[in-house]
């Protein structure tokens, strides 16, 4: 508190407030320092480590059938979205493992941590936004036909989301 301040007496009252926020400010500084010195901290990180687990391992993908985007023949999914996911899996050295189910089942499995990624006819108007992490909309995906398509990841897995969006920006533009 500056000595010349007219409201000098108020200093005592605000002290507990200030010290709490000073601790917060210290925390911010510490976090910033960690980043600046680049001591192996990745930002953003996944609270549940999805991207780490997927990289060089298995990518558990759920797909909902959507004509022109995801088709299933003899249990094998195909279509533009499927190709896109396989390319993404390649980019992180992962092996995709497919599950075919309805949208709601896919979202539930994302929530329960049994899937890493879900695709289908999801658009940027998706009602699942409270239950899954949603990418930005990509109208440039083949077969989108004017829709702004999104892909779904588990809520709050921000490293996974960032990796995926960075990949999509390069592949199909934004």
């Amino acid at each position: 508190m500056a000595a010349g301040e007219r409201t000098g007496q108020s200093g005592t009252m605000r002290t507990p407030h200030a010290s709490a926020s000073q601790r917060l400010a210290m925390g911010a500084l510490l976090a910033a320092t960690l980043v600046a010195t680049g001591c192996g901290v990745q930002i953003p990180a996944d609270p549940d480590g999805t991207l780490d687990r997927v990289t060089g391992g298995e990518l558990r993908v759920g797909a909902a059938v959507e004509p022109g985007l995801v088709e299933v023949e003899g249990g094998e999914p195909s279509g533009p979205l499927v190709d896109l996911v396989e390319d993404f899996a390649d980019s992180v050295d992962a092996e995709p493992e497919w599950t075919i189910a309805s949208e709601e089942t896919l979202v539930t499995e994302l929530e329960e941590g049994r899937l890493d990624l879900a695709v289908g006819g999801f658009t940027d108007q998706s009602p699942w936004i409270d239950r899954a992490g949603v990418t930005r909309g990509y109208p440039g995906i083949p077969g989108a036909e004017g829709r702004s398509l999104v892909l779904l990841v588990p809520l709050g897995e921000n490293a996974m989301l960032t990796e995926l969006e960075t990949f999509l920006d390069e592949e199909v533009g934004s």
Partner: protein
Amino acid sequence: MTRFGRTVLPAEQRVALRKAIRWEIFTIGYTTATIIAVAFVVGNSQAMRTAWIEDMLSLIPQIAFLAALLFVRRSPSRAHPYGLHRAMGVGHLVAGVALLAVGANLAVEAVTGLIAAEHPTIGTVRVFGQTVWLGWLMVGVMALIVIGPFFYGHAKSKLAPVLHNKLLYADADMAKADWQTNAASIVGVLGVGLGVWWLDGAAALFISLGIIWDGVRNTRAAVSDLMDRRGRTYDDRHPHPLIAQTNRYLRSLRWVDRSAVRVRDQGQVFHVEAFVVPRWGRVTTRQLDDASAGIVRLDWKMQDVVVVPVDRLPEEADPAT
């Protein structure tokens, strides 16, 4: 604007008032710009959302101040025999209640989010062909807009005592504490960045508790004054020194034996009832008029003064010490 009710403002107050109006208009412009800037980066962070809504709430005191000024300048009339000075207190009350209600709502949102373990999802945006994590932009914007309140907060806190304006004082006080909101939201976002998902909700809770506290303080202060508490200093810390000064003045009059005063704050100006026990039990109307005029001359805030001759001083009035 040169007057409050029946008082023509002294030069110092006139200058301070003009500056205060300018600072309030500047604040509204600045805050509007920050609200628009934050809108672009608010994303799914509860801390950012809470800070954003706090920014919107922080407009209320300025709007209330400017609106109240339109009323308090009017002279007393038959319909409003005490003038319209209470407009300032009403504005103060509205600001306090709004802070309280919205702050409580945001605190509940933060707590339910924490209990449900909602992991905030913050993705990327495209900036000049680069894919950038939105969290960095949030941190950047919050760090940038923290500057303004330091300037206008300190400027207004210098003007509030000159004008004896509690709404302006509360506004300045909140602006000076505003950096805590920005710091908290930065911590929340960086926490999410490091994978500590609950830091976002914790920061949101910290910010909303600050809003609630502001609401409680302002509502309490406004209600006390509207309920005619004894006049206090602009920061509500002490009984106003003009009370003792009025008694000293009355005691200096030869015909006054004892005196006591009731002073209530109408918002910037005081309503004064002075009770006097005349020596020898006699007083003329001329003496009463002169005493009343003498009290008005003590300070520009002494707006509405009545001097009442009595046999016994009322107990609740402040006696001369």
